């Protein structure tokens, strides 16, 4: 950890370095790319969620003037994608969800490409689909995915997780209160403002494939793409344009991406595929829907005893990273609040629904929803205060959880205390029609990356030019979260140079060092530590030369105001002068250094035990909610956020992450739901899929808790996923408490609220 006391830049409100390009429309997103001679790609998808394909006839499409290429599965030699390798890029013989890609066209214009799709004749024999995971698990259910590996012994289970710690039976005996409930969570969309896009540019001359891709994980993308296309990975160059929103949706490689590459390879021309908004809703990643059966116990004093969890996830027809959300959910059940015993089982079940993906929080909002609802119910049964039971069981610094997570720093209790105190709890203002009250929830998330890949590291190369300007070439990517700005701030702080002298290069796999990608709230932590490592080497190089010139010891030197200054003599040189001294005189060296940082986290063992992250983030939220008992409308008035961020690096960017997360969580809680009927999506528009707008937002009060994480850059830990994790749980807890009902599913729509009110009245009547 960097222990510097007086900071010049870290902790200041610094606008994003790229904001100027954004507000002037200069930023080039994937949707804006136009290459000379570029063709437009379009994909024919399945008409039915489940069908046998009898024949595909593309001859009329091929004959259409302006069409340069039409491909089906028979025209390409490729492998399946997804980490389970159960997902054919182009489908033949059968289709298993409405996303299924059957053929693709490259043409001189979008209109011609669309017209060509209409000319492709596919003969289907429609089959009855399976849309409920429970039905998929029946013995007589057909095998949905013929590439499945039969997880947990069942033909329709893609992936299973089992975890346990502690003595469940002994803890059950200790329990004065045991609560069992079922929770139902819907599918929701990332709804990134920029629709998905890719532009593939293959050169038949040298066999190089350049992909202008909005991926969040360029190096994993390059690797998977190479496997699918059976190409040498080094022949694939991934160039990231400006990315218009990620939130996890760009973690998986989606079939449209290798399809675009194939169209470019076949034609030898650049090909672009852009999604419309409807396609974005229908065909891009989503948050996985699931049913969680949760039993939890507490002793007579309210101390938690055990958790028993069974989760059934709708995997959809193919496996995505969404199936691995079980891994993160497990942590919440095993380790959020002190937990003596936990037994956890999760299955991802194939259906003929659309497949999922990863979405900010990666299963954690779902897990936290179930757990925090059960905690409220236990408090109620024990006659305890809802805040008190949480404080009693809060995580603490130094705790090593049953799963082996090591909390060197932990601001859970402070976060809880802060939001309870500031929220105005427990005052309830109940009018005749409008009733007001509070709800609480906490969350635990990885704060220092997550070791889910053989390396969770990030590389940095620094280049200081003879004019004293620094180029940071980092493996990490900017997807709007502001990591470039935070990295520049760290470098400016360390080198004592202005932000206007720093630029970041991070968009080209042929240039930048390896990084696992933007996920797990890891970038400031992992890329930050990588940068600090590189800066240390650079400073040592500069100091050594400066010390010779200043006749002093390198330890005596400070970097400030663009100079390297001796603390003793006051003698100083401009930093660029030292760079020139090194370059143009002996030893004739450039000021270029590299460093690779690998977090201290470890791979969990086969029982999923081990310290998976460099550190952990904690948060608590208190929401104040008003329910209109006449219409059932829930109005969130205030959200109080206490979050252990380790150290505030850029308050402006941090607040933006918190506010954006809370509102995304509020959308998940109240209005967002992808409505599927028999495998078809009924609301693929912003009109029918309601994301929050400016008028919907509550007052958000944010109280950062600084625990100065020893392994974090300047003491910081990961931030960005956390703020949406507890929000839905806290809102559902508030509504349930206000109305004295149980809201155990999302979203909490007016219809649902009214129905619960009516059911309660009928029950009492």
């Amino acid at each position: 950890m960097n222990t510097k006391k007086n900071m010049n830049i870290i902790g200041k409100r610094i606008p994003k370095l790229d904001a100027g390009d954004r507000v002037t429309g200069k930023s080039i997103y994937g949707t804006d790319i136009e290459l000379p001679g570029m063709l437009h790609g379009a994909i024919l998808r399945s008409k039915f969620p489940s069908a046998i394909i009898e024949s595909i006839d593309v001859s009329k499409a091929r004959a259409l003037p302006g069409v340069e290429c039409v491909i089906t599965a028979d025209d390409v030699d490729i492998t399946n994608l997804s980490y389970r390798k159960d997902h054919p890029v182009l489908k033949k013989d059968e289709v298993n969800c409405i996303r299924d890609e059957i053929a693709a066209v490259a043409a001189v214009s979008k209109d011609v490409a669309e017209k060509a799709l209409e000319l492709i004749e596919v003969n289907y024999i429609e089959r009855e689909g399976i849309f409920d995971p429970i039905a998929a698990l029946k013995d007589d259910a057909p095998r949905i995915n013929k590439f499945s590996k039969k997880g947990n012994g069942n033909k329709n289970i893609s992936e299973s997780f089992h975890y346990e710690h502690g003595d469940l039976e002994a803890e059950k005996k200790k329990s004065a209160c045991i609560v069992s409930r079922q929770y139902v969570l819907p599918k929701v969309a990332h709804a990134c403002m920029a629709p998905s896009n890719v532009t593939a540019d293959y050169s038949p001359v040298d066999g190089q494939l350049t992909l202008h891709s909005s991926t969040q994980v360029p190096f994993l993308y390059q690797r998977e793409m190479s496997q699918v296309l059976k190409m040498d990975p080094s022949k694939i160059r991934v160039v990231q344009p400006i990315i218009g929103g990620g939130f996890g949706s760009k973690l998986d490689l989606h079939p449209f991406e290798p399809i675009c590459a194939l169209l470019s390879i076949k034609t030898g021309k650049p090909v672009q595929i852009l999604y419309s908004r409807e396609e974005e809703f229908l065909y891009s990643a989503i948050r996985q829907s699931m049913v969680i059966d949760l039993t939890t116990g507490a002793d007579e004093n309210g101390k938690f005893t055990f958790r028993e969890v069974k989760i059934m996830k709708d995997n959809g027809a193919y496996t995505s990273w969404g199936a691995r959300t079980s891994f993160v959910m497990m942590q919440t059940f095993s380790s959020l609040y002190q937990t003596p015993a936990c037994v956890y089982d999760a299955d991802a079940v194939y259906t003929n629904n659309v497949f999922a993906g990863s979405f900010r929080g990666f299963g954690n909002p779902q897990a936290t929803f179930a757990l925090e609802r059960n905690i409220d119910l236990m408090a109620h049964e024990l006659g305890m205060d809802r805040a008190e039971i949480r404080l009693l069981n809060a995580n603490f610094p130094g705790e090593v959880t049953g799963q082996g997570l090591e909390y060197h720093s932990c601001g859970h209790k402070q976060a809880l205390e802060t939001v309870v105190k500031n929220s105005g709890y427990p005052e309830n203002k109940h009018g005749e029609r409008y009733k007001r009250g509070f709800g609480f929830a906490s969350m635990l998330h990885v704060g220092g990356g997550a070791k889910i890949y053989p390396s969770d590291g990030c590389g940095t190369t620094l280049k200081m030019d003879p004019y004293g300007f620094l180029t940071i070439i980092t493996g990490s990517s900017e997807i709007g979260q502001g990591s470039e700005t935070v990295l520049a701030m760290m470098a400016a702080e360390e080198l004592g140079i202005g932000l206007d002298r720093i630029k970041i290069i991070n968009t080209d796999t042929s240039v930048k060092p390896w990084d696992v990608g933007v996920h797990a709230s890891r970038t400031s932590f992992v890329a930050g530590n990588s940068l600090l490592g590189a800066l240390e080497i650079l400073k040592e190089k500069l100091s050594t030369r400066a010390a010779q010139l200043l006749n002093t010891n390198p330890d005596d030197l400070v970097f400030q105001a663009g100079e390297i200054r001796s603390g003793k003599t006051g003698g100083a040189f401009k930093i660029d002068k030292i760079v020139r001294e090194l370059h143009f005189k002996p030893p004739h060296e450039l000021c270029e250094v590299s460093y690779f940082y690998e977090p201290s986290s470890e791979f969990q063992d086969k029982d999923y035990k081990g310290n998976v992250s460099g550190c952990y983030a904690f948060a608590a939220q208190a929401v104040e909610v008003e329910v209109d008992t006449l219409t059932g409308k829930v109005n969130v008035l205030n959200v109080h956020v206490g979050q252990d961020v380790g150290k505030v690096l850029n308050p402006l960017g941090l607040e933006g992450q918190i506010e954006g997360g809370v509102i995304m969580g509020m959308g998940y809680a109240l209005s967002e739901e992808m409505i599927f009927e028999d495998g078809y999506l009924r609301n693929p528009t912003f009109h029918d899929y309601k994301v929050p707008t400016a008028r919907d937002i509550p007052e958000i009060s944010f109280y950062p808790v600084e625990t100065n994480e020893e392994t974090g850059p300047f003491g910081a830990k990961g931030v960005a996923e956390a703020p949406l994790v507890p929000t839905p749980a806290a809102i559902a807890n508030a509504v349930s408490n206000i109305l004295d009902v149980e809201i155990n599913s999302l979203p909490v729509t007016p219809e649902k609220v009214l129905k619960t009110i009516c059911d309660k009245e009928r029950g009492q009547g």
Partner: protein
Amino acid sequence: MKTNLCTISFTVNGQLCERTIPASLLLVDLIRDELKLKGTKPGCLEGECGSCSVLVDGIAVNSCLYLALNVDGKSVTTIEGLSGGEKSLDAVQQSMMDHGAVQCGYCTSGMVMAIKSFQDQCHKENHKPDREEIKKGLEGNICRCTGYVKIIDAVESLF
């Protein structure tokens, strides 16, 4: 199929412009595909998200719902026309930057144009909007990153 073509004359970011276009051409396509002004962003092409907002005679419109032929004789301002050349950043742009109102930035162009139109309207009426009025003024523009707080702050500071 024959396309009905029509010739229109208009100004875009102060420059006089004449184009012969299909009658069905949308303003967003004229701006992005014909004029190559890529700062205007297509978000939904159904008038729900506001990403493609531009000013027509100073009033923000969703350029995806506006036929290009309707700008005949009118003045169009896109995000590129608010600043640049000898013009320094518009107060709206500066305020969005200073308040941290930009994250991924895809909604930003449309958001800036909608705010510009809102600001002009308020100035015309000599009206200082409160926070609720600002929220109402922004409701046609979706942002998925910021949670709107910093955007509202940015607008509030303009008055």
